[in-house]
């Protein structure tokens, strides 16, 4: 089975080098990152502080009135530990004003709205501070589609997108992210008591193993099942989530009219000329 253990020191070097390189190539030297108090955004902040220096990192806390106070405490711990700049912008007035018009909206709509509200604040501060928005989505949630399109999935540069959740935890421990943050139950913190694993229906430890086989090792779903490595229902559910969320990992599909269509036969690196 694929070794998911990171050579942490190398990965740290590659990722800090990546942040420094990609941020500077874009003509910036600062980043802004939304701090939720969770392990992903904490790790992004740790890497950025090391890559660019703490004075060039802005951590933004964006609580809603139902957010757990613990989330803000943990985010503040990260700010303190790193000595980065920080700012708190409550999203309650904007979100509540909107749902005043649509009071019947369900949890999903409310959660998505909050994620997108936070995104607009991050991108506004990108312009305000001359800072790129640093991503915090890991490979597990990107593959499962467990994120809000144009919400928490939006960023300019994402150092974590090729690390599974379990690897994020491993690297976080290595970088000295406070244990209480690394070990707590991951949660989108959209309502009280919500946890990722309860919502997804499996643990990150389990799902990362399956994703590793399907994605990195190129196992077919049938191979995983035939080798009785995991429960068939579980493997199929993971594969289904991955396929169903493919659209979230791509630009919007464009109807082809001309002889050269963006991203289809008009192909340049993002680092074109940089």
């Amino acid at each position, binding site marked *: 089975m694929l*070794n998911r253990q990171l*050579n942490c020191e190398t*990965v740290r070097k*590659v990722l800090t080098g990546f942040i420094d*390189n990609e941020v500077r190539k874009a003509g910036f030297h600062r980043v802004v990152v939304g701090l939720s108090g969770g392990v992903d955004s904490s790790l992004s902040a740790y890497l950025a502080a090391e890559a660019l220096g703490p004075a060039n990192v802005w951590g933004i806390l964006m609580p809603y009135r139902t957010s757990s106070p613990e989330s803000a405490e943990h985010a503040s711990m990260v700010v303190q530990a790193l000595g980065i700049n920080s700012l708190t912008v409550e999203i309650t007035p904007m979100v509540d004003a909107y749902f005043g018009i649509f009071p019947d909206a369900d949890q999903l709509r409310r959660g998505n709205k909050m994620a997108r509200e936070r995104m607009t604040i991050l991108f506004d501060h990108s312009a305000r501070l001359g800072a790129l928005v640093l991503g915090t989505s890991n490979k597990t949630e990107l593959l499962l589609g467990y994120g809000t399109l144009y919400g928490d999935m939006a960023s300019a540069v994402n150092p974590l997108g090729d690390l599974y959740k379990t690897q994020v935890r491993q690297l976080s421990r290595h970088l000295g992210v406070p244990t209480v943050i690394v070990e707590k139950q991951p949660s989108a913190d959209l309502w009280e008591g919500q946890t990722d694993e309860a919502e997804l229906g499996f643990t990150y430890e389990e799902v990362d193993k399956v994703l590793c086989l399907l994605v990195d090792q190129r196992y077919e779903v049938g191979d995983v099942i035939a080798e009785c490595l995991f429960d068939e229902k579980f493997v199929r559910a993971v594969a289904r989530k991955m396929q169903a969320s493919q659209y979230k990992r791509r630009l919007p599909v464009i109807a082809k009219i001309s002889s050269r269509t963006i991203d289809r036969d008009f192909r*340049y690196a993002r680092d074109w*000329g940089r």
Partner: protein
Amino acid sequence: MRPFRVAVAQIAPTLGDLEKNLALHEKMAREAIAQSANLLIFPELSLTGYFLKDQVPSVALRPDAQALQLFRELSQRIAIILGFVEEASGHRFHNASAYFEGGEIRHIHRKAYLPTYGIFDEARYLAAGERIRAFDTALGRMAILICEDLWHPAAPAIAAWDGAEILICPSASPGRGLGQEGPFQNASTWERTIRACGDLLTTYIIYANRVGYEDGACFWGGSEVVAPSGEPLAKASYLEEELLVADLDPGRLRRARVVNPLLRDERLELTLREITRIVQARRTDGD
């Protein structure tokens, strides 16, 4: 071959910016001259960057291009191997490396194996080279194989059978897979491959890899000079820019070939017969 000093410029070119990369090449050449190197080797596509995609025709150069005049001049003082997109007749574009010496280009190798899988898409944009040749230089008989070329064992074997004493492999290898020893899984595989190549072919191998990032892919560096007995003589750092310098000694080549007379014992006609048989069988099978 004669004794000489080689320098490997482990650089991070800017993607698609010829002007900036030309200046970087010139800077490295001056540094190599200052260190009394006789040969300076740049990585694959060093003048242009690697993931060019639709930029290929925009950065392509003919070998007689004015932009390369600088290297013709510099090559009066130091031999230079650099990577560029060569625009050949019929507007075919090649991933090429040119050898400059004594004021002119003496040899061009066009990459023969274009990786088009996984992270790679070369055959979409580039034409494959049709030759693997050793060539004589003032320093010794050399052959150039670009990156993927070396992963097809026949290619380095042909170069060695053609008399190459020094096999040069400019490369742009993006790191992939989690490594326990090297920075990435494929870095360890590369190191095993080039050292085995040196050992089996009893030639010097100079592996010139680049560093830097393109669209999040990290080129891992770790350039090295491998002795004709397979052990690394000089090794550049991983991930960092560096000018790696090493001295090559004909005595070492001779001793390696005395200890392991593998090239003497090559059975080229046997190899040719068997290859001919396989090619014919495949033709008949329609494979």
